C-alpha cells in the first residue's frame, strides 16, 4: 500500500500545484521598490534582521546588517499599511501611500524596546509566519542574541535555562558528553522522550549511538548525542513548542514537543564578513574528599587499619585524573545579497580539551546557504551543511567493565601512586585498571562525518496562496574505535582489546504545505493549510571486536580470540497528511482546527493509520474597545487567553521490526543456525496515544514593560507500551504490550520585564518557572523494574523512574534506627549518627535495614526555574547573569556508595570508619565486612541524596567597539563564564549527572562520571 499511495499522493499534489500555478493573478499591478531603515528608538542603533511587511500580503523582507531594507512589491496604487517588527521591540505599523513613483524611499522607522511579545512572528506549529497573539498554544522562543551573549559549546548548553518547562541536563562534563532534553516530563517508557529537533526545515537525528563502551556497558553516560554536531554559533532563533499542540504540522514525531532551530541567513546588499576567535579554559569546580586515613602518629593506614609500608602513602588520584583544560574556536562567515538573492557561507573550527586527562573534542562546521528569487512569486533556497566531530574519549563509569578510569578511582584503593615507574610500567592492583594508564594508554575515540541539507521552494501564485516545499536530508557516519593495549593492568583485558563500530544513518523528509489566506470579510480572516509529509529513516550498525592482540597493531584483526561482530540494519517510513483551518475574527479571536492522519511502518497494518485531531482558540480580550475606555489598558496593555487540545502518538517508540518474532542468527560449531528470541512478536500492538490539553494566558503590563506568559497543561499518554513478561511455558519471556498510562500535569510561567529603561541604561530581566508532576497508572503489575540497576522502577500511581529498593529501618516514631534500635539522625556530612550518646555496644551507630523494600527516591524535579538579568550600559556595553535552578530531584550517589566502603576505601566515609569516627562493627577495623560502610552498602536509601541545585550558569560581558579603521566596522569583545558556581548540598562532584546518558527512565544516576566543569571564555568578533 505505502508505495502506491505515496506515488499517487505526490502526483495529486503536483497536479494541484500546476493547476494553481496556471491561474496566476492578472497584472493590473505595478512593481514598486520600497526601501528604508529600521532603528532603535533610544540609541539610534540600526536593527539588523527586523521584519518589514505590507500588511495583508506576502510582500516583505528583513533588514540587513545596517538595518536597511529594500524590496519589490506588485501592487495596485493606493494606501497600504507597512508593519515593522523586531524581537524585543514594539511593532510599529505606519500607513504608506504608493502612486506614480516606482521607487519609494521611506523615513526611518524607530522601534521602542518592549518586553511584550504579542506581535512577535513565530512559525513553529503554524502554517506560516504567525503573530503570537493568534496562537492557541504556548510557544517559547530564544533569540540568537541571547545564545551569543555567552558562547556555548553545544546547543543543549546554549538552551539551558532559557526555556520554561524544558529540562536540559548534562549527562557528563566530558567535552563530547551528552545532553538530555525533555519538555513537560516523560510521555513514554520504551521510546525516546526527547523532543523532535528541526533545523531549517530538516528533521535532525539526535540519537545517542553507543558504539564503544565508555562505561556502564553500552549504556554509559559517555554517549554522545548527535545534536553535538551542530555548532550553536550560527543560531538565529529557536522556537520551542512543548506538546501535542504542535502535532498537526509535525505529526507523531512531535509527541514530545518540537525544538525548531532557524540559522542565520544572508541579508542586505553589501557583503559582510565576520570573524570570531575565542579562547576557552575550564577546570573541575570541586573535588571530592578522598580517604587519607592516618593514625595518631601520622602514618597512613590501609583499608584494614594497619599502617602502610615505609615510603607508602595514600594519594588523591583526582590530582592525576583532572587537569585545567584549554580550547579555542575560530569562525568565519560571509553573507550578503540583494533583493533577489541572499547568501551566507560560514565555517568554524573548535577544539576543546576535557578536564579529564586524555579527553578532547574537535568539530569542524561548514555551511552554505543560498536563497534566490527565481520569479516574483517563486523563491528557492538551498542549504548545505557539513560537520565533522572528532572525540578522544576516556572510558568512565562502568559498573560492568573493569576498565573505566573514574571507576577505578572509585573502587581504589588509593594506597599507591598510579603513575608509571621509570620503566614505564603502570602499577596495578588486579581489581580494576590503573586510571592513569586508562587515560594515557587506552585509545578510545569517535568520529562523525555528517551532511545536512535542504532545498526549499516557496511559491506564491497569488498573494493569498502559498506553496511551501521542503526536502531535507540528514545523513551521518559515526565510527567508534576502542583499543586497549596488551600487557595492561586491567583484569580480564590484560591481553588487549580492539573494537571498531560504526553507524550509518540516513533520514529524509519531504514536506509539502499549501496555504490559502483570505479575508472573507474585513473582519473575518481565514487560513487554510493542507499538507503532507513523507519521512524515511535507515539505520545500519556494524561492529567488530577481538581480544588477545599482537603488539603494536591496533586493528581488530590483530586480536586472536573472542572475535565477534555485530550487524544490524533497520529502516522505517512514516507518512502523514493534514488539513488545518484557522479563522480569525476582528484580529481578536482565532479559532483553529486540524486533522491529521499518520502512518508508521513500525506498526501492523491494523494499527498503522492513526487519526490525530487538534483544536485551539486564542482570544485577545484587550483588543476590545472597553479595555482602553475603562482605563485597564494603562496597567494591562495586552491580555489574551488561549486554550488548545491536541492528540498525538508515539509512532516511532518501538523499533522498526519489534512487532515480529525475530530469530537471531547464531551459528554453532561451524554450522548455520538461528536461535529463538525471548521476545514474542506483537503484531497487534498499538502506538501510544497522547492527549494534551492546555490553558494559558499571555499578558503585558505597563505599556509592555512587563510581559507574562502562563500555561497549565495536562498530558495523558494512553496505551503505554511496556515489555510485559510471559509465562516461560509459552516458549517466550516477554512481549510488547499496550498496558497502563502515563500522565503529566504542570504549569509554566515566563515573566520578562524591563525594570529600568533610561537613555543610556537598560535593565531587562527574565524569570522562568515550571512544575511538572508525572504519574504512571494502570500497569498490570504495581511495580516494574525498568532501569538497568534493579532499583529504577515504574510503579502505579507514582512518577516514572522512582527508585525502589532497600530502606532504613525505622521505629514507630519514624526515626531511622541502628542495629540495636537506637534512634539516629543525619549529619551535615551525609552520615547518620546516634541522636544521643556515642556508640558503645556492637552495632550501635550502624543503621539497620528495613525488611521491606520501598520507594526511596524520585529523580523528577519539583520545579525548574531560571533568572536572567541583562544590563545594557550605553550602546556598547552589556552585562548578563543567568541563574538556573532545578529543585526537589533525588540523585542516586552510587559513586559514594562504593567509595565509602572500607573494603574499596577511596572516599571520605571509609576514612572515617578506619579512623574510628564511624563504627566498624563486630569485626573491628580489621574486618571491612561488618562496619558502617559495608552495612549501608546494601541500604540503598542511604545513598539517595537531594540533588537540588542552583547554578550560576552564565555570566557574560560584551563590549562592542565601533571602529572605522582598518576596514573594520565593529569589534566585539566577549568575556564569559559558564557553570561558575553551584549551590547544592550534594556529597559528590555534581548533582547534574546521569551515568546512563540520555535515557528516558533512568535519571540522575551518579556513578563515576566527569562533572560539568567551570569554564571561562574570551572572544573577539570582528565585522568587516
Amino acid at each position, binding site marked *: 500500500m505505502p508505495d502506491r499511495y505515496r506515488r499517487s499522493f505526490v502526483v495529486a499534489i503536483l497536479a494541484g500545484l500546476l493547476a494553481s500555478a496556471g491561474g496566476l493573478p492578472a497584472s493590473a499591478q505595478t512593481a514598486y521598490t520600497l526601501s528604508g531603515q529600521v532603528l532603535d528608538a533610544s540609541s539610534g542603533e540600526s536593527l539588523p534582521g527586523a521584519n518589514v511587511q505590507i500588511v495583508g500580503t506576502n510582500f516583505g523582507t528583513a533588514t540587513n546588517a545596517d538595518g536597511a531594507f529594500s524590496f519589490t512589491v506588485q501592487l495596485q496604487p493606493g494606501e497600504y499599511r507597512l508593519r515593522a517588527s523586531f524581537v524585543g521591540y514594539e511593532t510599529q505599523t505606519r500607513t504608506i501611500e504608493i502612486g506614480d513613483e516606482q521607487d519609494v524611499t521611506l523615513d526611518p522607522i524607530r522601534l521602542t524596546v518592549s518586553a511584550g511579545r504579542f506581535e512577535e512572528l513565530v512559525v513553529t506549529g503554524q502554517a506560516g509566519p504567525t503573530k503570537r497573539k493568534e496562537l492557541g498554544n504556548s510557544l517559547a522562543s530564544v533569540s540568537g542574541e541571547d545564545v551569543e551573549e555567552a558562547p556555548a559549546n553545544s546547543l543543549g548548553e546554549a538552551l539551558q535555562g532559557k526555556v520554561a518547562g524544558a529540562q536540559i541536563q548534562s549527562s557528563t562534563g566530558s567535552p563530547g558528553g551528552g545532553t538530555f532534553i525533555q519538555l513537560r516530563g516523560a510521555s513514554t517508557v520504551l521510546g525516546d522522550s526527547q523532543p523532535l529537533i528541526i533545523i531549517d526545515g530538516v528533521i535532525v537525528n539526535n540519537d545517542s549511538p553507543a558504539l564503544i563502551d565508555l562505561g556502564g556497558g553500552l549504556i554509559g553516560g559517555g554517549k554522545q548525542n548527535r545534536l553535538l554536531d551542530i555548532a550553536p554559533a550560527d543560531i538565529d532563533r529557536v522556537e520551542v513548542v512543548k506538546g501535542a499542540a504542535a502535532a498537526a504540522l509535525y505529526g507523531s514525531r512531535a509527541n514530545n514537543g518540537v525544538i525548531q532551530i532557524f540559522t542565520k541567513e544572508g541579508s542586505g546588499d553589501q557583503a559582510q564578513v565576520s570573524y570570531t576567535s575565542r579562547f576557552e579554559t575550564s577546570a573541575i569546580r570541586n573535588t571530592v574528599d578522598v580517604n587519607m586515613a592516618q593514625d595518631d602518629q601520622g602514618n597512613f593506614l590501609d583499608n584494614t587499619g594497619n599502617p602502610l609500608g615505609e615510603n607508602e602513602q595514600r594519594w588523591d588520584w583526582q590530582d592525576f585524573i583532572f587537569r585545567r583544560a584549554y580550547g579555542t574556536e575560530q569562525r568565519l562567515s560571509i553573507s550578503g545579497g540583494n533583493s533577489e538573492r541572499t547568501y551566507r557561507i560560514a565555517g568554524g573550527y573548535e577544539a576543546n580539551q576535557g578536564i579529564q586527562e586524555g579527553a578532547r573534542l574537535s568539530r569542524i562546521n561548514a555551511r552554505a546557504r543560498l536563497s534566490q528569487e527565481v520569479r516574483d512569486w517563486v523563491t528557492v533556497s538551498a542549504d548545505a551543511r557539513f560537520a565533522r566531530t572528532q572525540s578522544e574519549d576516556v572510558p568512565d563509569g562502568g559498573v560492568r567493565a573493569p576498565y573505566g578510569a573514574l571507576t577505578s578511582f572509585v573502587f581504589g584503593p588509593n594506597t599507591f601512586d598510579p603513575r608509571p615507574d621509570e620503566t614505564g610500567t603502570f602499577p596495578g592492583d588486579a581489581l580494576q585498571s590503573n586510571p592513569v594508564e586508562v587515560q594515557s594508554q587506552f585509545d578510545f575515540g569517535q568520529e562523525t562525518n555528517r551532511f545536512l541539507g535542504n532545498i526549499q521552494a516557496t511559491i506564491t501564485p497569488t498573494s493569498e496562496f502559498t506553496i511551501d516545499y521542503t526536502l531535507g536530508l540528514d545523513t551521518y557516519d559515526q565510527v567508534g574505535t576502542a583499543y586497549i593495549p596488551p600487557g595492561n593492568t586491567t583484569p580480564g583485558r590484560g591481553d588487549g582489546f580492539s573494537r571498531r563500530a560504526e553507524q550509518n544513518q540516513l533520514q529524509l523528509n519531504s514536506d509539502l504545505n499549501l496555504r490559502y489566506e483570505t479575508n472573507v470579510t474585513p473582519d473575518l480572516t481565514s487560513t487554510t493549510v493542507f499538507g503532507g509529509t513523507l519521512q524515511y529513516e535507515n539505520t545500519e550498525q556494524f561492529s567488530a571486536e577481538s581480544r588477545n592482540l599482537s603488539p603494536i597493531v591496533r586493528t581488530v584483526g590483530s586480536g586472536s580470540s573472542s572475535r565477534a561482530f555485530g550487524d544490524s540494519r533497520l529502516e522505517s517510513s512514516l507518512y502523514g497528511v493534514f488539513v488545518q483551518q484557522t479563522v480569525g475574527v476582528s484580529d481578536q479571536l482565532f479559532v483553529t482546527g486540524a486533522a491529521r492522519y499518520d502512518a508508521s511502518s513500525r506498526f501492523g497494518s491494523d494499527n498503522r493509520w492513526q487519526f490525530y485531531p487538534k483544536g485551539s482558540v486564542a482570544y485577545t480580550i484587550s483588543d476590545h474597545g472597553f479595555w482602553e475606555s475603562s482605563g485597564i489598558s494603562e496597567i494591562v496593555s495586552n491580555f489574551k487567553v488561549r486554550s488548545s487540545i491536541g492528540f498525538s502518538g508515539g509512532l516511532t517508540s518501538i523499533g522498526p521490526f519489534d512487532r515480529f518474532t525475530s530469530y537471531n542468527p547464531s551459528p*554453532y560449531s561451524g554450522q548455520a543456525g538461528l536461535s529463538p528470541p525471548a521476545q514474542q512478536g506483537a503484531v497487534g500492538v498499538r502506538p501510544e496515544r497522547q492527549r494534551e490539553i492546555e490553558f494559558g494566558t499571555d499578558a503585558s503590563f505597563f505599556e509592555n514593560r512587563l510581559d507574562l506568559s502562563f500555561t497549565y497543561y495536562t498530558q495523558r499518554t494512553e496505551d503505554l507500551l511496556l515489555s510485559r513478561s510471559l509465562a*516461560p*511455558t509459552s*516458549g517466550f519471556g516477554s512481549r510488547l504490550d499496550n498496558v497502563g498510562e502515563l500522565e503529566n500535569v504542570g504549569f509554566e510561567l515566563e515573566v520578562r520585564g524591563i525594570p529600568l529603561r533610561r537613555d543610556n541604561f537598560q535593565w531587562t530581566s527574565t524569570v522562568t518557572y515550571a512544575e511538572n508532576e508525572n504519574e504512571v497508572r494502570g500497569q498490570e503489575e504495581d511495580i516494574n523494574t525498568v532501569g538497568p540497576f534493579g532499583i529504577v522502577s515504574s510503579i502505579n500511581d507514582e512518577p516514572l523512574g522512582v527508585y525502589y529498593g532497600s530502606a532504613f529501618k525505622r521505629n514507630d516514631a519514624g526515626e531511622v534506627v541502628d542495629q540495636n534500635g537506637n534512634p539516629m539522625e543525619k549529619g551535615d556530612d551525609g552520615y547518620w549518627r546516634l541522636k544521643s550518646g556515642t556508640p558503645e555496644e556492637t552495632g550501635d551507630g550502624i543503621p539497620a535495614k528495613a525488611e521491606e523494600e520501598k520507594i526511596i527516591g524520585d529523580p523528577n524535579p519539583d520545579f525548574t526555574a531560571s533568572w536572567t538579568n541583562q544590563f545594557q550600559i550605553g550602546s556598547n556595553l552589556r552585562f548578563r547573569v543567568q541563574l538556573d535552578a532545578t529543585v526537589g530531584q533525588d540523585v542516586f550517589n552510587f559513586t559514594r556508595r562504593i567509595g565509602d566502603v572500607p573494603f574499596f576505601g577511596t572516599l571520605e566515609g571509609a576514612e572515617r570508619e578506619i579512623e574510628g569516627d564511624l563504627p566498624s562493627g563486630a569485626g573491628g577495623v580489621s574486618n571491612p565486612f561488618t562496619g558502617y560502610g559495608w552495612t549501608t552498602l546494601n541500604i540503598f536509601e542511604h545513598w539517595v541524596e537531594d540533588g537540588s541545585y542552583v547554578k550560576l550558569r552564565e555570566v557574560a560581558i560584551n563590549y562592542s567597539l565601533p571602529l572605522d579603521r582598518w576596514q573594520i566596522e565593529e569589534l566585539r569583545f566577549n568575556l564569559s563564564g559558564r557553570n561558575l558556581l553551584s549551590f547544592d548540598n550534594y556529597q559528590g562532584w555534581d548533582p547534574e549527572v546521569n551515568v546512563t546518558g540520555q535515557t528516558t527512565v533512568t535519571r540522575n544516576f551518579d556513578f563515576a562520571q566527569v562533572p560539568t566543569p567551570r569554564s571561562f571564555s574570551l572572544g573577539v568578533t570582528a565585522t568587516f
Partner: protein
Amino acid sequence: MQGYYAEQVLEPKVLTIGTTAREVTVTNTLSNLQQLEQGGTALPATNANVNRLWSRSYRVVRTAERLIENVRTVPFEEGTESGILATAHLFKAMALGTVAQGFEQGALTVDEDKDVEYVGRNEVLAEALNQLAEAERQINQVPPSEEFLQNILAPGIDLPNTISAYQARYNLFAGNYSEAIDAASAVDLEATSLLSFNDQTQNPIWNFIDVLGYYAPRDNFGSELTESGDQRLEFYTSPVDTTSDAGDPLPFEDVAGFADGTSTSFPLYVPGEMVLIRAEAKLRLDNFDAQDVVSELDKVRTKTANEDPLGVGADLSAYNGPETEAALEEEILRQRRAELFMQGLALEDLRRLAGPVSNQSDPGDFERTRNFYPYPAQERRNNPNTPQDPGF
C-alpha cells in the same frame, strides 16, 4: 536449538543444580547467587537462576515443537527429515528431563495462546521417554542422510547412542529398571557424544567459573563419600588451597575436566553412567544379584583414564565393602558423585540415594539445599495453573 541448548541450557543445568546439590560453591556476592547457595526458604521464586533453568528449557521445547510441526513443509530428502525430527525429539526430551530434575511438576508442551496445564514429574519423564522413542523410531525407519550428518547435526553429537543413553537415564529416574538396563546396554561405551565449543561459542561452564568467577567446584566433589586416591578428582578439578569468602566458607578447587577452557567439549553423557545405571537398576530388581551389581560397580571403580574414551577413570581397587542393599546404594551414590561430577544429575541422585535432609532449615554442608525448586515467579504471575511451591 542445538547451539541454544549448549550455550544457554547447559549452564543452569550444571551450575544451578550443581549448587543446590553441593557440587559447586558460590564465590560471588551477587544476591541471586547467594540465595541459590543458601537454598531452603532463602531461595525465592524470583531467583534468576531458577528462572533460567525453567525458561530456557521451555524455550528448547518450543523450538523443538516448531521444528516437528513444520519440517514436513520443507522438501528435504527423507533421511534429512528423519534426522531433523530425531534431533528435535531428542532435544525436547532432554529439556523436559531437565525440568523433571529441578521441579516437582511441569508442563508437557508449550502454548503461546493459552495457559498450559501441569502434570507430575513422573509424567514429564514419561513424555520425555515418548519423545526419545519417537526419535529412535525416526532414525530406525530412515537412516539420517549425509546432508543431515554433515550440515545439520552439530559436530560431536552421536544421535543413536545419545538417544539410548537418555532412555537409560530417564527410565532409571522413572523406575523402569529393566528398560533402563536394556537401554544402557544398547549404548556403545567406546562412543562419545559431545557438545562442542570454540572461541565463538565458548564453554559456558568455564566462562561462569573461570571468567566470571561466580562458582567453583568444591573440594572432594562436595561429598563426604569421596575416597582418597580417586583419580577422577584430578580429572575434574585442579587443587588450590582456597576457601570461598562469600557466604558459607567452603573450600574449593579450580575447575578442570569438561570446563577446562574456552573450547573444551562437554559430554551429553559419560560412558560410565551407563554402567552405573545398570548397577543401580540391577540392585532395584526383585531378588537382586549382589555379585552382578558389584561387578558393574568395579568396572567403574577400576577403570583407568586410558580405558575411558573421555579420560574419566577412578583407578581404585575393586569394591570390598558389604554387599547389603544399603551399602551398595551408598557405593552407587559415591561412584555417581565422582563419575558424573558437574553434569546436572546430582540433585536427582541425592534425592534418590542420599536419604532425607537432616534439618531442612539448616542443611549440612554436604546436603542438598532443596529437593525441588519453587516455580519461577514469572510463571506464576502469568499462568494461573501454576501449582503450589514445594516446601523444600
